[in-house]
């Protein structure tokens, strides 16, 4: 090893690191347990897993703690960690039809086989600050709720047929567009037009807020695209891989929680002249309902021709990534002395030209 000079810049970043640590805990009574984040800030960990593209609730909780609750930073920590992991296997195709459901609704039909099931949702809870949460007896509340909702405490898996299967059986839906080659956005070079699998992957990792905004634009004023939620389901799905030593068998790695949304859009005529409905598809890690709906709207928008922002493939796909958008916007904090100096130089030269032009005009 050669001699390494300790420099002012190095001292400064080390000091900043320490100061940041200090600000993280200076007013703390005790260290925040990551298990508390994981178990009680469900939506936050779900969102970080979804945008980070890594299903690991414990690590998401750790990332949230480390990032002091900065969502983008936490998703970035997950993404940077995941990019160092080897991809040893590809899972078999998961089947959300076999989902162990905790929530399932349809806005298209009142009566669907298996029925509507609200499950865990804040949709109909009044948005009033609940001051009782400041002094909550968790144990007592757990006991009370266990008695009140016994069906959520059984090991009985609840699996229900999908609404889209019913529509398909009745010949109302086009079959999903299949792509032969599965693109991997973390490994393959993305060029445009992007294959459908790449589009879906980018959207599945997209930033919730950005996607919601773009989907909103498509619903509100730009295409007045108002799809019907055929079905939204939340629950657990098994992930399996082909057993490495015997390809006839599957090996279950565990369950992941997913939100799956299928929206029903306008009908269209295909090349064979058949008229059927188009389906939009959204799938996210965890319970991320708005993002899943936004995804279904956006992916369907990208399948249709038009000039609105949400139908523009590059506009949508290149701007919904939290890590990239945050990285580039925040890089403006880096010094730009050189480019600014260069710009000043051009400005001064241009000023000189403008001055001489003025003088000439006066002379005339």
């Amino acid at each position: 090893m050669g001699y390494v000079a300790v420099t002012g810049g190095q001292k400064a970043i080390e000091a900043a690191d320490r100061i940041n640590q200090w600000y993280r805990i200076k007013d703390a009574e005790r260290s925040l347990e990551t298990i508390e984040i994981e178990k009680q800030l469900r939506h936050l960990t779900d969102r970080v897993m979804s945008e980070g593209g890594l299903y690991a609730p414990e690590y998401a909780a750790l990332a949230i703690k480390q990032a002091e609750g900065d969502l983008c930073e936490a998703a970035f920590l997950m993404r940077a960690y995941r990019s160092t992991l080897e991809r040893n296997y590809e899972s078999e195709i998961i089947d959300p039809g076999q989902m162990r459901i905790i929530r399932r609704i349809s806005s298209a039909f009142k009566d669907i086989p298996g029925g509507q099931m609200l499950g865990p949702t804040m949709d109909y809870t009044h948005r009033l600050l609940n001051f009782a949460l400041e002094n909550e007896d968790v144990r007592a509340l757990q006991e009370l709720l266990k008695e009140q909702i016994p069906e959520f405490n059984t090991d009985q898996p609840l699996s229900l047929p999908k609404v889209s299967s019913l529509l398909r059986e009745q010949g109302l839906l086009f079959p999903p567009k299949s792509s032969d080659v599965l693109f991997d956005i973390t490994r393959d070079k993305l060029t445009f037009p992007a294959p459908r699998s790449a589009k879906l992957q980018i959207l599945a990792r997209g930033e919730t807020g950005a996607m919601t905004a773009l989907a909103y634009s498509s619903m509100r004023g730009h295409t007045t695209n108002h799809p019907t939620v055929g079905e939204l389901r939340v629950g657990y799905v098994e992930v399996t891989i082909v057993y490495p030593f015997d390809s006839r068998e599957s090996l279950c790695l565990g369950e992941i929680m997913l939100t799956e949304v299928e929206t029903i859009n306008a009908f269209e005529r295909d090349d064979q002249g058949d008229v059927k409905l188009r389906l939009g598809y959204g799938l996210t890690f965890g319970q991320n309902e708005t993002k899943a709906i936004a995804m279904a709207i956006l992916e369907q928008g990208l399948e249709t021709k038009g000039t609105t922002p949400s139908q523009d493939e590059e506009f949508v796909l290149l701007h919904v990534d939290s890590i990239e958008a945050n990285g580039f916007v925040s890089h403006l904090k880096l010094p730009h002395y050189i480019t600014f100096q260069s710009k000043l130089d051009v400005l001064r030269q241009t000023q000189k030209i403008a001055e001489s032009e003025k003088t000439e005009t006066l002379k005339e």
Partner: protein
Amino acid sequence: MQPHLKQTYNYAFLDEGSKKEIRRTTLKAVAIPGYQVPFASREMPIGRGWGTGGLQLTLSLIGDQDCLKVIDQGNDDSVNAVSIKKLVQSCTEAEVTTDSERATLIQTRHRIPEVPIRADQILIFQVPLPEPLRMVEAKERKTKQLHAEMDYSGIWLRLYEDIVKWGKISIGADYPALAHKRHIFAPSPIPRYDLPKLNHADGLFLFGAGREKKIYAIPPYTDIEPLAFDDYPFETEHFDGCNCRLCGSSDTFLDEIFDEKTGQKFYQCSDTGNCRKRQEKRHTP
């Protein structure tokens, strides 16, 4: 504070598959000067847009025999340069230096060192926006087609409009240039002062845009022509009559600095490593 990267991660952080892809892409880039070759681009543990393209190139190249210099704005001690150097040191045994003549690899943001790059050195640029035609066309699909057809009328028109409006071409840094008489490329935002250094140089220049997922290259002895008109020739920044207040140099790129008390304006070399060497030379008789 850094976790023990040497134990946890592969040599030079990236897994071998990622390195191979970057290397294959780089070889292609060298074979097609100035053409932006897409690559998959991994997420790195530094901000996306904070030098991840340059960093991935550096990590795909570096070995323990290398000596690395990292500069930002010409400065070795700029915090992001320090941060990148620290990351590379945490996952390799490579030496680091501030002396551009000792370095085998130099990663840079916004500058080319004053001392010309030698044949045995590689200069690696961090590139924010690799597409020179982006200023006239927003869509990647279209700019790709424009390059394919060598249809550069849009950017020429833009330069012409500049002259009509301002009396000169108003581009500061990142001045577009033509490589090997075929591809227009963005030299990353280096000042115009540095652009001629790319023309028929002795060393190899590699450009990495991590967020935009592109790698391109300018090999040694390659024609690099800044876009300009016969009657409105290419001009570098003007430092007429200015000297560095530290080394006295009048032939280097200078930062403009204001004294916070007096408000007085003075100049200082942007290449701090070179400036320090010049100062030392001045003091040793």
